[in-house]
């Protein structure tokens, strides 16, 4: 089961980051701010023409050509059940590497790269409900805002076996 290897893998990544610190890329989705470990992010690109793909869930927007490699694009808004939104000036595709696959995710805006210490991470409150619940590893408390730490591996774990 892929979920079993999740924690050790992450723990290892955290350790590699140095004693208790972690580098994140933060991005905005609707009103919420999320963070992904920087090690998972390959690059951030502008929106371009996406070729739609049949027989796939609505959140799979289609395929793009990333320097001669064809990669799928996932709309994170739709994935988390947020209302769809037309791309804006700020919309970006974050290209992430998960389990040897390269996938692009559409986010509303990419904010910044920041370093946090591990004790800033709190477990997600059990009261948080909704679609995205299982993909959260924790909450990062910053001075005046809250960052949701996204478990990108888990997010795509389901994609591997889904067909049609």
């Amino acid at each position, binding site marked *: 089961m892929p979920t079993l290897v999740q924690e050790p893998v992450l723990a290892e990544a955290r350790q590699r980051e140095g004693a208790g610190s972690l580098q994140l890329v933060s991005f905005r989705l609707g009103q919420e701010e999320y963070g992904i470990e920087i090690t998972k992010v390959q690059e951030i690109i502008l929106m371009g023409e996406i*070729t739609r*793909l049949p027989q*796939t869930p609505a959140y799979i927007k289609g*395929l793009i*050509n990333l320097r001669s490699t064809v990669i799928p694009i996932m709309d994170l808004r739709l994935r988390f059940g947020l209302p769809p939104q037309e791309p804006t000036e700020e919309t970006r595709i974050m290209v992430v590497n998960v389990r040897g696959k*390269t996938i692009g995710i559409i986010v509303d805006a990419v904010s910044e790269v920041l370093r946090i210490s591990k004790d800033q991470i709190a477990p997600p409150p059990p009261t948080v409900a909704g679609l995205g619940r299982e993909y959260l590893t924790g909450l990062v408390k910053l001075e005046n805002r809250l960052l949701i730490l996204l478990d990108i591996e888990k997010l795509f774990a389901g994609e591997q076996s889904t067909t049609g």
Partner: protein
Amino acid sequence: MSATDQPGKDEFYESLLGDFLDESAQLLDRLNENLLKLDEWTQVSENLPEPRCHEDLLNDMFRAAHSLKGLSAMLGLQEINHLTHKVENVFDAARKGALRVTREVVNLLFEAVDRLAALIEALKEPNGEPVEYEGVLAKIHQVLKASGADRAQSTQADAERALAAIERGLQALDEPTHSPAEADAALGPVVPVGGQPPSGFAARLKAASPHPPAQGSRIEADFSKQGEQPAGTQAAPSGCLREQPVAATTGGAELSDPLAGIDDEAALPAKYIGIFIDEATETLDQLTELLLANERVGQKETVEQLMVLAHKWKGSAASVGLHRAAKLAHLMEDVLQGLLAQHALPNPWLTDTLLRTTDALRQFVETLRQGQPRTDHFGPVACELLAVQQAIPSQPSILPTPPEARKAEAQAQPSADPVCPLADSGTGNLSSFSCQVPPIVSPDWRQKVVAKLPEGARAIVGEVYFEKELPLVGLKGRLIYEKLCRLGEVCQCDPPPDRLEDAEQLEKFSFALLTEQPLALVENQLEIAGIRGKVLEIWPPQSSLGTPEGSAASLCGPASLAEQLGSAAQSSGSAEAAGASSSRRSAGVPPAGPSAEPPSGEATRPAETLRVDIERLDELMNLAGQLVLNKARFTRIGESLKGLLSARNPLQIFERISAALEAISQSSYREDKEPHKELQALRATVRRIHQEVVELGKELQVLPRARQAVYEFQEAVHQLDRVTDGLQQTVMQTRMVPIGPLFARFKRVVRDITRLNGKSARLVIIGEKTELDKRMIDELGDPLIHLVRNALDHGIEPPEVRESLGKPRQGTVTLEAFHRGNSIVIRVSDDGRGLDAEKILKKAMEKGLVSPADAEKMSRQEIYQLIWQPGLSTAEKVTEISGRGMGMDIVWAKISELNGSVEIDSTPGLGTTMTIKLPLTLAILPSLMIQIDGETFALPIEAVGEIVHLKGSDMYTIQGRWVARVRNTVISVVHLRDLFRWNQPSANQTGKSEQTTLVILGDTGRQIGLAVDGVLGEEDVVIKSISENYHNVPGLAGASILGDGRVALILDVSALVEMASGRHSASSC
């Protein structure tokens, strides 16, 4: 696979393993192929009284098994090593005649080879299931035991005992207390075996020197001197040796190793070991290469080179203190020297021994490299070498014995050497060589015979030499003649048969036999007491494999020392045949006739090759594909630039404007003498404008140059076009391999299946040189097996049935491959009963695949197409081979996956032909680019039947399903939006056109018409996998990148047809 089988999984090991996998596959193929031949042979020879198998075949298999054994030993793959060793033993026993090759033996060998293949396959997946092979091992052991072939082992024990005694002598020699002279005196003729001059061991003292060449050259000089000595004067060592075994029996257990008592230096100078390893490996490589080359083209020079190399090895090993290895190399050197002194060439078994020696040394170097040198495997090899050495007729001493001493020895033992017929100089009328059987048929006889042979006939030309003053020699001759008559037609012989019986003196009997029997069989039949030897040649000569192939020479002599030593070379049949006289393959004699001249000039240089990781080729292919895309973009840019510049000539317009402006400004000068202020201002403006325009004109001068540049740009793009096409094609070609090996595998399949189902069939292979993408070949094995199985099981009738139908008893399955345009066509056909349309239809109706109403209207071709449906098998009962109804849909799926198509053609009573059409490569797909709902798609051109334009009036609905009448067939019309579930509307939806274009897809009987907005044309697209970063999407074969960088989807036609029929059946329910 146990963990112990993989010592240090480092990069070096990995690369070795890669080589091993590659090489072993070839060796296994060769074994399988030869086993098939052997299998045929066993069937033919079943009724012969004492058949001896074709020796070359067995030798070849022995060598294949041997190579495999050596390779596996090198990698420390013990399981494979064990099994190959056993298999090798079987071949060895068989080729020496100790084991009769029956069908059971062949079956066992097949099983063993299968196990081997499984073991090797398991290497690719280290975590896979362990492969069981002990069963086969035990069976082989039993077979060997039952046949008494393990006699070789007991004789080897004898040899070991004998050799141990020699070894003790050597140790004495090695004692520093003895002076060299003493040692000589004590051991004298024994020395050739361990013939190490004391100075050789003194070399140990020079051990610090890593440069043995100086030493080497000295010995080289020695050896050349030795070589010059006439063979007849060589001292005979055997008299002394014969006494040794008796003494040896009292020896202790440690005597089993001839190298016992020789120890390597305890502290090896690490600094030099590295140098030694490199040098030793290189030398071993050269040795092996030469040995293998020598096997093909026996040459004296090669033996000399071999000796130099063995000597060099010995020197290097001794110089770093590795005395055991040095000793083994020394033994090898001795054997070679013996050969050279004898003007002889290594024969196959000797070569094998030498190869085994190099393997043992190689293994040693490998263990040394790993820091744990092991020499415990040297013992058996050393024994073998010593035995072989004794088998060489005359053995010169390597020891620089003073000539007088030698003479004295020779006198002391008047009939010194029983082995060597050469020493028998008593018969005055014969030259020293004449009592030996010449290696080839005398040229006179050959010429005489060959001139009269019928055109194209295969004959065995031979001469049998009788022993001197043999009583009733004429009768013997007659017996031989009778025997030959039973094997074929004796077309010529000398003396003629009617004069044979009266002959009282007969040296030889020459004959020419028209026969198809193998050489070995004829040779076997001529094993009669009283003959001194015989030479046989196949005419016309066989070109393959060179010297020992076409001719077999054997000579007989009195009981040889070799026998006592249990030489591996001994032929078993001879012992029974001729009491005291034994027969064995001659070690080869100097080339006498012109025909024996080595074909040195004709030796073709093998094509230089390089093994490349297929991943790299994929990457290269990918890059070439991108280049093609970029080139397409350049072409487009060029076109648009040309378009921009092709407007009406702006320079002419400019000229006109300029002229007009000038006219205005000048005319106003002349006519108005007192111009108004405004007019003056206007004139000034016009003048300024004129100046500006002139400036602009200068700028515009660039235009023609720009046009020229665009023209040049397009030229360059054309050039690029050619280069990229060339590049792409070359890369594609590097991935191309002939289909032959894949086809050849089916020989075994046919054999196995016909065995099981009692049918008789042969496999005909056509076009084995046709080249396909390597990946494609890998993928084709499965579908082809299903097709061949089906042909054999369902197509070909049982022999009795065939006979009653007036067909030959043996059925024929043909595998054919050829290129047609941009595709590869592979055909599997049989001459069996053909497909039974009624049966298929009945079955399909039972399964509910076809409604009774539809069934009536179906054409024969449409019915045939039903066999691709899963679960449909026409076989009445499920057999071991096929009939579970799983095969054909797998074939269909696989071929579709490869973007190919399959056609069925069958004639009842005459057979079935399956034609597979495939694109040339998996990486590039010739496609038809189409537009649907504003999006571009690629359709594999292979699947496109035709393109038709229809007016609205040509389309109808039947029960709500759109159909179109194309000529006289009704084809269902499919809209992609109905088949695919899109999760969003198309981004660039276009308006509906009045005309509908249909692309007809699929095969007869399952055709659909895909409605498209437009056809953009043909294009070779580079296939990009969607599953690489996502997962497979039903209905799509992949994606491709268009010239403008956008992604286009490649439609999976067979899936579309499937989806369309599924949709229809669903909607009709």
